[in-house]
């Protein structure tokens, strides 16, 4: 689990890193490439302009040199050496190096060392090269082969070119510095931007992991309206649903658990009696009367166990069966039938019973279940009346009403008695399985504390609400409210 978490974490981070580096690379290549292309183009133009200027100058100088050589060669061929010398000195004062070659070889050179460029222009043409010349830095070497009467002459001139390269390198350096600075700023900005963009995703990932670990109340705070905001909202909705589902499951499980706890506790009492009775029969020397008394007790206890099992069975069946064989049930017929079943019992107990059906309503439900719901409530009412008449001798007239009426949108069936009533605690706990307000009485009357629980389940299956109103010593009203 933990290892898994870590893996997911690094995967997310590595994806983010990859996205970051790809974007950065793309950005830098585009930006720096463009910057350097522009710079190169500008510098190249400068270079060409400078070269053209120097070449023009060279042509001019070459023409004058050529004219002079032709002149001197025609008039005083011996003065050629001096001419070369003079021209060389002249050029050198302008920073230009000169080398003259003819068919005899090199006749003049102001180069301290031979340049390493092998330039061999065709006759009458000029070639150039930018080269490092020892002691002078970068120079533009221009070699021309003279033509016509001066054929065979090769004139090499070297113009100082270092300043251009210095400028160029300075340019490059500043461009590189600017590029580096901007790249750095870009990298930082991109990182921050990605982080901001990524934050909701990271939050979502974190929330998902926490949800998986069972923290169902986790939610993502994201007010964005974009796809990520939508995702966050969907996530929140999903988490909410999971939470309600889990809470519902927990509540159901808890309810079941408490029912089982209560049941196993409820079983203990009859079991204890059964076990002790059996041991007594087995071990003690008993008179026949005693034996019969114990056997009778045993029968009573097994009867209780049987009843408990039946009630539990109907409870669990109600839990399982949902709207299975539902059909339209006439409320009037239902109430009249339930009343009919109890008439004899009411008469025997001296209960004044009245049936007041102000309204009839076809109900959608299970006939038998609804009948058992009403019978349970009527039975409870009857017991409550009996309890009051036990404790209150004299002018007490037990009275039970079965009413059906409409209350707003709801159709309500009400069983009202003027029996012993319930206290606040009993009213609160009456729906708990096995809750009995008076255990001794309920034992006598054969209750096992499951009646109201079963009623509650029946009402729930029918989408109806069961609730009670009661005052101790005054009576109880039980309502079954059907939504129509």
């Amino acid at each position, binding site marked *: 689990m933990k290892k898994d978490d870590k893996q997911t974490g690094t995967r997310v981070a590595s994806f983010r890193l990859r996205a970051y580096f790809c974007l950065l690379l793309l950005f830098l290549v585009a930006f720096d490439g463009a910057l350097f292309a522009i710079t190169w183009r500008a510098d190249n133009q400068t270079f060409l302009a400078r070269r053209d200027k120097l070449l023009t100058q060279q042509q001019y100088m070459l023409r004058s040199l050529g004219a002079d050589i032709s002149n001197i060669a025609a008039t005083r061929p011996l003065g050629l050496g001096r001419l070369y010398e003079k021209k060389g000195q002249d050029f050198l004062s302008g920073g230009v190096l000169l080398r003259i070659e003819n068919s005899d070889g090199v006749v003049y050179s102001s180069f301290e060392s031979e340049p390493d460029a092998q330039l061999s222009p065709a006759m009458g043409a000029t070639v150039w090269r930018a080269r490092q010349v020892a002691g002078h830095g970068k120079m533009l070497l221009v070699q021309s082969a003279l033509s016509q009467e001066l054929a065979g002459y090769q004139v090499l001139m070297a113009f100082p070119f270092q300043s251009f390269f210095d400028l160029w390198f300075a340019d490059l350096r500043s461009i590189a510095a600017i590029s580096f600075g901007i790249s750095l700023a870009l990298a930082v900005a991109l990182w921050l931007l990605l982080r901001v963009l990524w934050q909701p995703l990271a939050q979502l990932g974190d929330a998902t992991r926490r949800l998986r670990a069972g923290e169902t109340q986790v939610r993502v705070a994201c007010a964005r309206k974009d796809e990520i905001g939508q995702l966050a909202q969907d996530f929140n909705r999903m988490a909410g649903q999971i939470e309600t589902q889990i809470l519902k499951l927990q509540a159901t499980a808890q309810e079941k658990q408490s029912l089982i706890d209560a049941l196993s*506790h409820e079983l*203990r*009492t009859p*079991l*204890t*009696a*059964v*076990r*002790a*009775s059996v*041991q*007594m029969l*087995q*071990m*003690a*020397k008993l*008179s026949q009367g*005693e034996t019969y008394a*114990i056997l009778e*007790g045993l029968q*009573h*206890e097994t009867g209780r166990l049987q009843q408990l099992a039946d009630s539990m069975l109907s409870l669990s069946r109600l839990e399982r069966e949902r709207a299975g064989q539902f059909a339209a049930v006439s409320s009037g017929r239902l109430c009249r039938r339930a009343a009919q079943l109890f008439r004899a019992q009411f008469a025997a107990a001296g209960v004044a019973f009245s049936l007041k059906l102000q309204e009839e309503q076809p109900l959608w439900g299970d006939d038998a279940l609804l009948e058992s719901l009403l019978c349970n409530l009527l039975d409870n009412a009857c017991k409550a009346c009996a309890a009051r008449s036990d404790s209150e001798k004299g002018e007490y007239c037990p009275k039970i009403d079965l009413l059906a009426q409409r209350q707003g949108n709801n159709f309500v069936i009400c069983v009202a008695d003027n029996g012993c009533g319930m206290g606040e605690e009993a009213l609160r706990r009456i729906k708990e399985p096995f809750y009995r307000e*008076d*255990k*001794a009485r309920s*034992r006598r009357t054969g209750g096992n504390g499951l009646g109201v629980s079963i009623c509650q389940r029946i009402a729930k299956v029918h989408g109806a609400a069961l609730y009670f109103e009661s005052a101790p010593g005054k009576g109880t009203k039980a309502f079954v409210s059907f939504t129509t």
Partner: protein
Amino acid sequence: MANILIAEDEPAIAALMERSLSLVGHKVECAADGNEALQVFLKGNFDLALLDIMMPGLDGLTLKARLPAGLPVIFVSAKNAVADQLKGLGMGADDYITKPFDMLVLLARVEAVLRRTCKSEQGLTVGRCYIDLQKRCVLVAGVPMPLTPQEFNLLEVLVRNRNLALSREKLLELAWGFDYDGDTRTVDVHIQKLRRKLRLENEICTVYKYGYRLETGPVGGGGGNGEKR
């Protein structure tokens, strides 16, 4: 014999507890709830109280707090969670028995508590014998009768659970111990010896296909059992 107060709201269980405790010679009073138990306690002089925990009115734990601290109390409850037992024992109860309980276990635990509080019976007369449980000796018609320790163990088990039939296996377990690796026939042999030595042929009855029972008359029994017969 000890006077025992039972507070138990389930009449069937109360009746059975009363019956079994009376059989072995205790005097028992029952109350159906906590308040009634308090009233019964004030009227009598009790050596031990057996209290149910969940009762209407006053519950067992509250009742225990209201009773004098010197009165030994055993809780008998269907609440079998360890927490409940610890709570009961933590309140100063001497023991805690969970329902459903074995009758012999109930008797044994009652006996153990009574022994601790020195309310255990000293001895009793059965037939022509006086059995002194304190000194572990028996007088037959006033004359001491030597018994082997094992014979006395068996006699004591019979006396402590008198009027109750004990199976041979149970006798073996109670008088010889769990780890005794003997035959149930050993029990028969020892029973024969006891009958002969103590002349209890009529009192130590054979229960057909089950075991033996020491029957005491109304004098030794003291409980309701004798009167009813």
